[in-house]
C-alpha cells in the first residue's frame, strides 16, 4: 500500500468545470489566521460553493512555541509553568496533569488536603472556562451581550484564584508534591459567595441564550457527529460526550477527590451543536455540585509534602498520565533517562483532536454554521500548536 501525501497546494488546486455556462465555481478562502471567530491564530482554508462550505482544511503552526522541546531543557518542576500556556483557560488542570504524572513516576504520596484543594481548583477552573466559552459562543453567533456577561461572572472566579494563587490566568499553582500556597483564609467564603451568585446567573444564561429561538434554530442538527466518528478522530471532553459517549476521566479514573463526590456525566443525544452547547452548560452545574460537596470538607494537612527546592529525578522509563480538562483529555507522556530534566515530553492535548471534528462535521453547512461548529468545539489555539 502506498501512502499518498496530499499537501495543501494539491488540495487547493481547483478543478474547473466549463461544460455548462451555468456551472458555478468553487473557490477557496482563508479564514484566519486573523479572523474574529477563530479565537487566535488558527487558519482554516475553506473550499466554498457560494455560502456553502465544501471542505475545511485546518492549517496549524501559527503559534507553535515548541513547548515540548522546551520541556527537554527544563527541570520537572520548571516544566509545570509551561503547561499553563497550553490551554490557558484550564491552566490549573494542566498543572495538575503534569504534576500528577511526575508524582506517579516519582512515587510521591499526597495527603487528602492537597487532593481536595486540587479538585476544587480544577472544578472552579472548569466553570470559569465554560463561562468564557459561553460568552464567546454567544458572540460568535452574533449576540454580543453574553460575551460580557460571561466575562463578568468569570471575573469572580478569577478573583478567587487571584487571592489564593496570586495569578489570574497563568497559575503555576499545582506543583509536583503539592500546591504552591495553602488556600487563602478567605477562600472558602469567596467560593461560597460565588456559588450563591452564580446559580441565578446560570438560569439567566438559559433564558438569554438557550431559550432563544434564534439560537436554537442555529444549533439544532448543525454539525452532527456520531459517537463512532468522534471516537475515531480522538475527540474527548464535552465534544465526545455530546456525541453520546459517556467518557469522563473524572468518573472512570476517579483521580484526585472525584471518587468521593457525587456528580453526573453529561452526555448529548445527537452530537449536534445544541448538544455540545447544552453539555457544557450542564457541566457547569455539575461542577458547582462538586464544589459544593467539597468546600465544607477540606481536610487539615500540609499543602506541600516536599521541599520546593528539592530536585526531582524520575527513574528511567516512560510515564503517561491523563486528566480531564475543560476541553477533554490532556495526556502527559514523559520519557525519563534518570536525569533532572525529561528526555522527551509529549503532550496529548484535547484541542488538537477536537479541532479535527471540524473537517468531519462542517462540510455542506453554511459559513455561519461553520462558525457555530467551531465555537461549539471550544478550541483554544495555543493548545493545538503547543
Amino acid at each position: 500500500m502506498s501512502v499518498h501525501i496530499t499537501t495543501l497546494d494539491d488540495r487547493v488546486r481547483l478543478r474547473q468545470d466549463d461544460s455548462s455556462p451555468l456551472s458555478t465555481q468553487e473557490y477557496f478562502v482563508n479564514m484566519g489566521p486573523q479572523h474574529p471567530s477563530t479565537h487566535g491564530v488558527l487558519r482554516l482554508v475553506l473550499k466554498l460553493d457560494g455560502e456553502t462550505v465544501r471542505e475545511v482544511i485546518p492549517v496549524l503552526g501559527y503559534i507553535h512555541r515548541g513547548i515540548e522541546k522546551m520541556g527537554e531543557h527544563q527541570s520537572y518542576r520548571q516544566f509545570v509553568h509551561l503547561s499553563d500556556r497550553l490551554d490557558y483557560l484550564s491552566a490549573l488542570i494542566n498543572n495538575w496533569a503534569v504534576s500528577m504524572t511526575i508524582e506517579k513516576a516519582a512515587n510521591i504520596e499526597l495527603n487528602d488536603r492537597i487532593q481536595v484543594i486540587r479538585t476544587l481548583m480544577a472544578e472552579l477552573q472548569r466553570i470559569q472556562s465554560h463561562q468564557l466559552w459561553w460568552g464567546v459562543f454567544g458572540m460568535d453567533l452574533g449576540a454580543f451581550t453574553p460575551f460580557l456577561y460571561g466575562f463578568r461572572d468569570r471575573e469572580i472566579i478569577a478573583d478567587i484564584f487571584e487571592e489564593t494563587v496570586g495569578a489570574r490566568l497563568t497559575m503555576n499553582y499545582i506543583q509536583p508534591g503539592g500546591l504552591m500556597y495553602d488556600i487563602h483564609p478567605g477562600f472558602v467564603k469567596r467560593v461560597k459567595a460565588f456559588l450563591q451568585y452564580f446559580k441565578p446567573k446560570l438560569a439567566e444564561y438559559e433564558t438569554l441564550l438557550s431559550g432563544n429561538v434564534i439560537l436554537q434554530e442555529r444549533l439544532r442538527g448543525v454539525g452532527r457527529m456520531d459517537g463512532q466518528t468522534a471516537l475515531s478522530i480522538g475527540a474527548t471532553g464535552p465534544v465526545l460526550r455530546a456525541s453520546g459517549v459517556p467518557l469522563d476521566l473524572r468518573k472512570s479514573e476517579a483521580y484526585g477527590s472525584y471518587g468521593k463526590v457525587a456528580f453526573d456525566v453529561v452526555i448529548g443525544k445527537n452530537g449536534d451543536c445544541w448538544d455540545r452547547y447544552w453539555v457544557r452548560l450542564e457541566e457547569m452545574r455539575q461542577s458547582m455540585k462538586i464544589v459544593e460537596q467539597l468546600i465544607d470538607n477540606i481536610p487539615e494537612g500540609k499543602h506541600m509534602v516536599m521541599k520546593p527546592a528539592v530536585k526531582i529525578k524520575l527513574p528511567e522509563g516512560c510515564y503517561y498520565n491523563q486528566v480531564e480538562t475543560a476541553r477533554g483529555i490532556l495526556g502527559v507522556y514523559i520519557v525519563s533517562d534518570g536525569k533532572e530534566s525529561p528526555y522527551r515530553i509529549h503532550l496529548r492535548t484535547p484541542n488538537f483532536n477536537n479541532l479535527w471534528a471540524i473537517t468531519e462535521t462542517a462540510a455542506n453547512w453554511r459559513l455561519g454554521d461553520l462558525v457555530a461548529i467551531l465555537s461549539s468545539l471550544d478550541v483554544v489555539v495555543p493548545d493545538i500548536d503547543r
Partner: protein
Amino acid sequence: MMQATDKQENPTRSGLVTAPELKRHGFFRNVFSGIKSLLEGMKVTFHYLSHPSTVVTQQYPENRATLKMMERYRALLTMIHDENGLHKCTGCQICHDNCPNASINVVTRSNPVSGKKELDRYIWRMDSCTFCNLCVQVCPFGVLKMDGSFEGAVYDRRLFVFTLNHYAGPAAGLLAKVADPEERKKMIEPRDRYSGPVPLNGQELAGVKALKKAESGCCGGSGGCCSDSQGSQGSKEMK
C-alpha cells in the same frame, strides 16, 4: 460502539444526564413560542439596563486610591529589605538555577574586606519573567517576594532590567556581626535599581524622561545613599 448502545438501552442510567431534545411544533406555535422566547431574553437585558447598580466596570486610573491588589498577587519581584535597608541574600544562586527562563542573574563578588563570596547584583529581567513564582518558593532565606504593584509599563525595554538589591555586600546576618560602623561601610557598596548590565544612570534615552534619583526607588537607608555612588557607578560603566 459499546457505550452508545449501552446508553440507548438504559437512558435513565444513574450518573448520566442527557441533553434535552429541541422540538419543533406547528407553524403558529413556533411563531408564538419564538416571540415569547425573544421577549424573555429582552427582559434579561432590560433588567441590567434599568439597574445601574449592576454595572461592574472599574474606572481604573480614577480608582487607584481604592484599588487594592490581593496580597499574593504576582506582579513585581522585589527583594525584602529590613528597616535598616539590609537584605538576607547570600548569593547562593538557587533562584538563579531554578528560574525556568533565565530571568534571574545573581552576580556575586568577593568582599573587599573579608574576601568572602557575597551578592554583588541581583539582576531580574521583567521582560522575560513569566511570574511563575519558583524563585520566591525555592529561596531558603525568604529573601524574595512578589509585589502587587502591577503598573509596570515603561517606554523603554531597558527599564525592565532591574537590580533588586539595594547594596552589594554580605547578608543582614553577617553584617550584624560587624561591630565597627567604619568597617561596615567599607564592606557594602550601594546598588541602584537601574545600575545593572543595562545601565541607565546618567544616560539620556530618546523620548524617555531621564530618571530622577528619587524615582529610581533605590536605597532604603543603607550607608551612603545613591547620590555619590550613582555618579561613580555611571562613569564606571561608561568607561
